């Protein structure tokens, strides 16, 4: 093989492992999912491909509330994560001094415990007659009917808590690698502290925020653990429905159809989002 040919082939050879990975773990399952969603039948008699598109129509009309609720929860939780995560990242990056790594470690320390256990412990803490609420009620500081569990607040707070590090870390990286000379340059050029933040720090950390949104919004929308453990009948998210269809009703085509719609909606959302901001900006956290 000539050198020139090899040079031309090299990029394709390099992309091969990644390409195979994508094909095996992404493309094939999606096709399988799509095929399954168009099947009819049941677990005992087996499923057969009938291109039954009506499944989509009736599932959507039946569960659109949960769909919308999931997107609303995801949006609010993501906004809350920015509101909480940005100041945390900012503080660690600019005021963490020599103990930055220690603070980051503290931030992710709770996440060494399994997702489900972490959420269950919140359930325990926030139970209607649990250590916090029960005690406050006994002291007469809260009315007996007060509750946190099984409210929208509980589920959104759970989502926010569980995905917070995925928001903090990319913002932290963007702030941390910012040339601190730029802040001095800005204040040398007559910017006061607010203007330094607004004109320099914020625009330069936006790619980190975008990356954080991508990393948190998608899993938050499709989450079902928080709604399951912290929510009640009025907090059911689309993830819970899908789980139920699969594991309880064993109605695979319906579960597949819902999954497919959810995934398509998220993909389209991410695509529009990336287009609107330019992928360059989303991916440029690393190129500073």
């Amino acid at each position, binding site marked *: 093989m000539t050198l020139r040919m090899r040079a031309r082939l090299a990029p394709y050879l390099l992309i091969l492992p990644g390409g195979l990975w994508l094909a095996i773990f992404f493309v094939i399952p999606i096709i399988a999912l799509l095929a399954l969603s168009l099947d009819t039948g049941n677990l005992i008699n087996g499923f057969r491909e009938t291109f039954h598109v009506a499944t989509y129509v009736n599932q959507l009309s039946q569960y659109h509330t949960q769909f919308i609720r999931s997107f609303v929860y995801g949006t609010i939780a993501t906004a809350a994560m920015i509101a909480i995560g940005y100041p945390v990242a900012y503080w660690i990056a600019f005021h963490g001094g020599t103990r930055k790594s220690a603070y980051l470690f503290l931030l992710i320390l709770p996440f060494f415990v399994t997702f489900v256990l972490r959420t269950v412990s919140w359930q325990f803490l926030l139970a209607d007659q649990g250590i916090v609420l029960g005690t406050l009620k006994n002291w007469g500081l809260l009315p007996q009917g007060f509750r946190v569990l099984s409210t929208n607040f509980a589920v959104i707070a759970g989502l926010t808590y569980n995905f917070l590090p995925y928001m903090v870390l990319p913002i932290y990286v963007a702030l941390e690698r910012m*040339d601190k*000379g*730029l802040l*001095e*340059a*800005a*204040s*040398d*050029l*007559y*910017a*006061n502290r607010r*203007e330094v933040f607004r*004109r*320099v720090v914020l*625009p*330069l950390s936006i790619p980190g925020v975008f990356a954080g949104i991508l990393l948190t919004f998608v899993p938050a929308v499709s989450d079902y653990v928080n709604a399951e453990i912290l929510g009640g009948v009025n907090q059911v998210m689309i993830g819970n429905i899908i789980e139920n269809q699969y594991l309880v009703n064993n109605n695979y085509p319906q579960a597949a159809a819902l999954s497919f719609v959810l995934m398509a909606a998220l993909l389209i959302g991410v695509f529009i989002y990336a287009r609107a901001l330019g992928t360059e900006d989303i991916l440029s956290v690393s190129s*500073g």
Partner: protein
Amino acid sequence: MSVTQMPQGTAVVDTGSGLPAGAADTGGAPAPAGLAAIELVGVSKSFSSRDGNVQAVERIDLAIGQGEFFSLLGPSGCGKTTTLRMIAGFEEPTQGRILLYGEDMVGVPPNRRDVNLVFQSYALFPHLNVFENVAFGLRRRKVPHDAVRRRVGEVLELVQLEGRERRRPKELSGGQQQRVALARALVNNPRALLLDEPLGALDLKLRQAMQIELKRIQREVGITFVYVTHDQGEALTMSDRLVVMNEGRIEQLGSPREVYEQPRTRFVAGFIGTSNLLSGRVARVVGGSALLDLGPGERVVVPLRGGAVPGQHLDLTVRPEKIDMTGGPEPPEAECRIRGRVTDVVYLGSSTQHVVVTSTGASMVVFSQNRGTSGEASAPTHDVWLSWRAEHSYLLAEQEQAGDEEPREETGGTQ
């Protein structure tokens, strides 16, 4: 030289060299007339770090005149950047005062000081294009849009970057980025421009071009420039006046010519150009000059600034290009002459450099022009005479005594 004009008109000398005050009063570069643009009065700065205190700047007195091109020159770590950052307001002095046009700046944040800093790393805003980078200061000062457009246009023309307004800093060459950094500061028309080794990152050719450019711009806009560099050539060619700093202190202040030809201390003599150091004992003092005690036929005369007594030890320096070298046993007719032996010859193209060990054991460098006549250059082991005029002997200040007032924490091993 080394003379700081105080507001009251008294001359204060602080070369950090332990000289008696009178000895420094030998005229020199004009100290700024009238109100100084920037004045440092007894400024010290120490940083506390893990291994004790670092004295970055120690009791500096300076007065920089309006429209002056003033350089801070010194080796790495001598406190140049720290001094500049204190003027810009990024560091507060631990002691002393900094005045801008007579106004005390202590406690005034950088954004409220009418000086601008050109950073060594440029620190251009990567998310803004060239136009917005340059306009940054004007916009913060709420200058109307039309005026912003006009001013930015003018300054970009001045630094020859017209037509590049829409580029991001990443899309510019190093020299262009440097000019954007300069334009970004100049556009504000500050009372003084502080430049921290602005040409440090450029290659030699570009650097020389930018030196000429900077000087032209400074003449055109007439703004006071305080220029930090560790390149002595740069400081000598560009400055109206300069200070040589060492370990946080001022070694010498003066015009480039004074500092080059009449270095006051061993350090300055060594730091600026190739210097030849001679030492000896005073034989006689005649009419303000000392005659050194040397071998038969030899004679070295050095003008004195203070007094001297016979037997006293003196150090002096002579610039290589001031020295004539002659072969043969006959001593030349010259005020100063000393015997030596050539130990090394280096051909430099237009000239030849000879290293000569004198009868006193000092090693001296001499240049001779290659005019084409053969036999001009001497071979090693040749015995030669070195001669020069008395006015080119320059007396060095005695070495500072260690621990002359308060001991420096981080002294050690720098002699």
